């Protein structure tokens, strides 16, 4: 493998991991409520910006990151409790518009509470590059890929091995039946928003040392995560991960071999192509139930 190709693949996997985390956030909320939460990107921003400001206040990085994730989860809870739940019974389109409004509000608040400058987090364990197959890998990339892998495993275990995780899946498959089994749809919605917000924030913290962070970083990362979720198949967890990685690789290879000017366009071309040619995405639901 040429060093150049290896380099593109590594950076594609890194950014793809971030997209995967954001896409998982989309998938979890979509499953619980069929809402596409366009405030997902703002959680990414809150994660990065809150960590920057807590670090600036003198907290150690690990603590700052943990608090930032907790803050994002709280904001996610509040979004569900005070913006989405009061509108229950409204159409899904209305709910989606509510999340767009929330995104604008959060972005504005971030610009007020923090500032409009671009910030960087220090890399978690130095900047000394690691040589891999003729390419160089920043230690931060290992953090991104490693933490994403851990999170994916933890989520898999939660949804496949615990009754609470399966209860969330049950709500997504059949809301009425889940209610009749005593599963609180309200609580599932709250948990989903908190979990998605925490995932987004974590992505924002992991990526901040590589791509920097600012009050408006959530717009693009949110849309890329959305494109990844569409590519993988909206609502599918494995699809979100696959979609994120594939999108990251396509972007990186496209930027490397074509032109970096098209980097951002690739995600949206992919999204359009998927919506037109295979709306179910790579691993989307193939409905086949006997009646």
């Amino acid at each position: 493998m040429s060093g150049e190709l290896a380099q593109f693949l590594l950076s594609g996997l890194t950014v793809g991991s971030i997209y995967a985390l954001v896409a998982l956030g989309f998938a979890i909320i979509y499953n619980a409520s069929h809402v596409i939460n366009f405030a997902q990107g703002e959680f990414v921003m809150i994660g990065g910006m809150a960590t920057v400001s807590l670090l600036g206040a003198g907290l150690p990085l690990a603590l700052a990151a943990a608090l930032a994730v907790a803050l994002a989860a709280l904001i996610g809870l509040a979004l569900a409790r005070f913006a989405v739940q009061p509108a229950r019974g409204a159409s899904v389109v209305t709910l989606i518009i509510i999340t767009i409004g929330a995104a604008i509000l959060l972005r504005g608040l971030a610009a007020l509470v923090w500032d409009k400058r671009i910030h960087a987090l220090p890399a978690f364990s130095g900047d000394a590059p690691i040589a891999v197959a003729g390419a160089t890998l920043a230690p931060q990339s290992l953090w991104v890929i490693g933490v994403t892998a851990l999170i994916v495993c933890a989520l898999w275990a939660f949804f496949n091995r615990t009754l609470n995780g399966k209860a969330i899946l049950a709500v997504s498959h059949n809301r009425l039946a889940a209610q009749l089994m005593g599963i609180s749809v309200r609580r599932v919605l709250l948990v989903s928003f908190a979990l998605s917000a925490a995932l987004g924030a974590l992505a924002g913290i992991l990526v901040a040392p590589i791509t920097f962070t600012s009050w408006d970083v959530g717009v693009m990362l949110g849309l890329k995560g959305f494109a990844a979720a569409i590519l993988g198949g909206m609502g599918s967890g494995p699809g979100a991960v696959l979609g994120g990685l594939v999108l990251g690789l396509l972007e990186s290879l496209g930027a490397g071999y074509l032109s970096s000017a098209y980097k951002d366009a690739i995600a949206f071309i992919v999204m359009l192509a998927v919506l037109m040619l295979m709306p179910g995405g790579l691993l989307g639901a193939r409905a086949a139930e006997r009646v």
Partner: protein
Amino acid sequence: MLRVEKLESRYGRIPALKGISLRVEAGELVALVGANGAGKSTLLRALSGVQPVSGGSVAFCGENVTAATPEARVRLGIVQVPEGRQVFGPLSVEDNLRLGAYRRGRAQIEASLAYVYGLFPDLVERRAQPAGNLSGGQQQMLAMGRALMARPRLLLLDEPSMGLAPRLVAGIFACITKLRGDDTAIFLVDQNARAALAIADRGYVLETGSIVLAGTGAELLADQAVRSAYLGL
């Protein structure tokens, strides 16, 4: 055990239940018959707390549950097998059953699983399969098993025989009679009025949102109006 007083519910401005009063005693099997659109499913949904009510009251074991959440009612023992089975298709048979016991302690789940598998042996060999792959009859068994996992004191059955082959219908009704016990009452809604009334202690006839007739199962089966309207005799 269950006391429903003047219960009302509406879809927008259209009344669906116009002051329903009925009761189900502990261990009883009560059938509700009526034509399509009479409000049978609406009544069951209201009893489970997934359909808003606009008037009247529901009391269960002396407790007013008119405004209780669906999950609180499940905890109290009001459990419904919804119309059309509504199993969690992509989840395994066993996961479906375990979710039925969601409101109960983990310790009791295994015993209930053994009980349900004993009742429906067909489900044992398919425990790892996605519920959506089961046949209609097996899905009905799964839906009933899932509800039984919650240890109901009042089991609400909505159209358990709908869409099943006649041979299976007999099996389902035989099973329902087995389920009623000292501490489990059954409130059964079915299009198959003859079979439902035949196994019921008592029955109610629902017409456009109102109870028009009540009596023992045998009385209703013999009633001339019921025979012509619902039994085709």
